């Protein structure tokens, strides 16, 4: 009994001593590597020639996000098809943190993709799922897998299955042709939904992702149209005298904010879509334009030159109060809210020209994200991790992207002609 007691006491003492010792030394880690997270997406094992390289689509998706650094295939000296076959030491030696492996089996005209996500340092499987798709749905299936992996690792919903709308122009002078396109978020599967020999501008996604609002000069005067993407059916929403521009949907999808000059100079108006009633919400003697809804639908961002140059203001729709938000530099325009409403993305003219920038609303700190000097029309991914924008490359307009923290930037594959005015869709599923 006494021996037991003594042993117990001794054990407790040792435990406390070790705990106390553990509390003694704490090393502060305040800096991380500049690199993105190393990940390996092993080509999926398949018994057939696949119409799409699924693993490559996933790898490209993750790389484009800026947060992952996929391992080159030629550096892989084993190609496991499932977690059972993984020898973790090999991957740890390559400093790989996550591993994706999968295999595809064909059942009729359907493909069944079984993929697994492994934590290399923990030597554990984090995710295993089976996805079935037809031949045409393989890219979507790959984007879906990318979304699942991204969310499992980062706790952030993936936005790889979303789409983008953009305007292209081709030709010169009077022969210039304009077109409105919708494509996958990686720029593939592009689809032309409108073409015109007059300018098309400012496409905007409805919150449900089914419709686009845009400005078309097809009647030689600007008018705002709303078009169903799937059916192509469209209606003209406004055709007021003067400017009809920059439509954006309210989060509830029942209203459109826009810029009209029917009362003189450009001002911000809100239209109720059902009744087509239009209400003016800004009343200054200067130019107000480029409205953008807050995620809660209670306020609008807009650009105004009332201070002498373009700056970003916020209008509270309930009280009508206006507040200037940007004070860094003398050009800040085309603002968009981050999905969490805590920051805005905008075009800021700094020492490097026109750059995509992010301003934290609480601190007011503005950080330039893109390195290009000719950025315009930023649009934020629905998960807030990326911003796409229009920029210039070799005299042509192209689409660029940058991660919301500025660590990664990318180019979307070049579409035909001059590409401008990208708009990122909301989550579509």
């Amino acid at each position, binding site marked *: 009994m006494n021996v037991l007691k003594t042993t117990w006491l001794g054990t407790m003492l040792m435990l406390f001593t*070790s705990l106390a*010792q*553990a*509390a*003694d*030394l*704490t*090393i*502060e*880690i*305040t*800096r*991380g*590597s500049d*690199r*993105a*997270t*190393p990940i390996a997406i092993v080509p999926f094992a398949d018994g057939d020639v696949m119409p799409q390289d699924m693993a490559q689509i996933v790898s490209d998706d993750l790389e484009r*996000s*800026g*947060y992952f650094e996929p391992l080159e295939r030629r550096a892989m000296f084993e190609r496991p098809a499932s977690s059972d076959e993984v020898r973790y030491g090999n991957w*740890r030696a390559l*400093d790989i*943190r996550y591993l994706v492996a999968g295999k595809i089996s064909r059942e009729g005209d359907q493909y069944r993709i079984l993929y697994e996500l492994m*934590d290399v*340092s*923990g030597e554990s499987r984090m995710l295993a799922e089976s996805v079935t798709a037809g031949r045409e749905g393989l890219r979507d299936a790959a984007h879906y897998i990318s979304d699942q992996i991204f969310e499992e*690792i*980062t*706790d*952030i919903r993936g936005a790889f299955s979303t789409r983008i709308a953009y305007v292209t122009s081709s030709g010169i002078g009077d022969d210039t042709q304009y077109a409105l396109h919708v494509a996958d978020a990686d720029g593939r599967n592009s689809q032309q939904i409108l073409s015109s020999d007059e300018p098309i501008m400012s496409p905007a996604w409805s919150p449900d992702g089914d419709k686009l609002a845009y400005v078309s000069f097809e009647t030689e005067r600007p008018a705002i149209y709303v078009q169903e993407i799937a059916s192509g059916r469209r209606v003209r929403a406004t055709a007021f005298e003067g400017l009809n521009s920059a439509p954006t949907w309210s989060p509830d999808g029942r209203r459109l904010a826009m810029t009209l000059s029917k009362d003189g100079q450009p001002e911000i108006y809100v239209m109720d879509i059902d009744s087509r009633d239009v209400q003016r919400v800004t009343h200054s003697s200067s130019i107000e334009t480029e409205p953008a809804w807050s995620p809660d639908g209670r306020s609008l961002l807009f650009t105004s030159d009332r201070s002498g140059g373009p700056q970003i203001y916020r209008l509270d729709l309930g009280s009508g109060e206006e507040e200037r938000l940007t004070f860094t530099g003398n050009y800040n325009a085309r603002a968009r809210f981050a999905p969490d409403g805590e920051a805005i993305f905008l075009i800021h003219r700094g020492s490097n020209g026109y750059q995509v920038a992010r301003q934290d609303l609480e601190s007011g700190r503005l*950080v330039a994200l893109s390195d290009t000097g000719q950025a315009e029309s930023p649009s934020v991914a629905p998960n*807030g*991790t990326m911003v796409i924008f229009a920029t210039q490359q070799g005299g042509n307009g192209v689409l660029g992207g940058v*991660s*919301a*923290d*500025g*660590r990664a930037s990318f180019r979307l594959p070049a579409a035909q002609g001059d590409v401008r005015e990208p708009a990122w869709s909301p989550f579509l599923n």
Partner: protein
Amino acid sequence: MARHDRRVGYGLPLVLAIALHLAILVATVIRFPERETEPPSTTIVQATLVSTETTTDQAQRAEETRSRRTARQAEEEDALRAEEEATREAEVEAAKEAERQRLAEAEAREEARRAAEEEAARRAEQAEQQAREREEAAKRRRQAEAERQRQAEAEAERQRQAEAEAERQRQAEAEAERQRQAEADAERQRQAEAEAERQRQAEAEAERQRQAEARRAAEAANQSLDRAIEGEADNVANARQATEAANSFINLVRRAVEQAWVIPPNVPDGASAEISVQLGPSGELFEATIGQSSGNSAFDRSAIQAVKAAAPFAELRELPASAQRDYRQFNLRFRPGDIR
């Protein structure tokens, strides 16, 4: 003279006796004139009495003056006569009296001489007796004195001896105390010297160990460098790490973990996670557990992964043996600084 020869002590009594006789004789001769002047003094006493009467009754004096004057004249004539008579009778009587007195004096002188001689003898005897007694007493006193002195001396001697004894004892004790203190001092000094010696040895040992450590680290670094020079690209990192270990194990751990830490995207501001790390004796990772979660699972996992990717911390073995145990358990607090 013969008596003088026999007893020297009788001289003084004899002189005293003669002196006494002479004194008595002188006293006798001197007393005569005093007796002869006594009658006039009696008359003066009478006259004094009369005057006293008159002074006591001054009122009557004026009334009685005349009668008294006549009476006094008669009385003066009678008194003169009576006085002549009395003078004659007194002269005869005085002559007879003088004769009687001469005889009486001769007899008295003889009587006095005898008495004086007897007295002298008696006094001499008495003086002799007293002298003897005094002699005796003195003798006794001397003896007693001697005795007292002996006793006092003995006492003093005893006291001296006692004091000397006490002094000796005190000195002995003081000596013993001095000796004890000296021994204690010596012991303390011995101990201090031993301690200092131990400390010197320990420091020397520590210094030797440090130098050995530094040598080992330098050798390890050199060896790593050698290997690196041989062409193994991986060993370049090892060589660098070995040199760093010689500097600071903690800095090495920090650097290694920071290098391995891939901060996930969109980390909430102020995110912080604490990872408890336990190493094996060779610096291999025993365990990396989340001590304090950031609340963001991606962030927590990135921290764990960073530790696992940075391990093993083989440089642990290059620490002094005593320190190795202390560094086998520590915490890593992941708190991104200024990231965009």
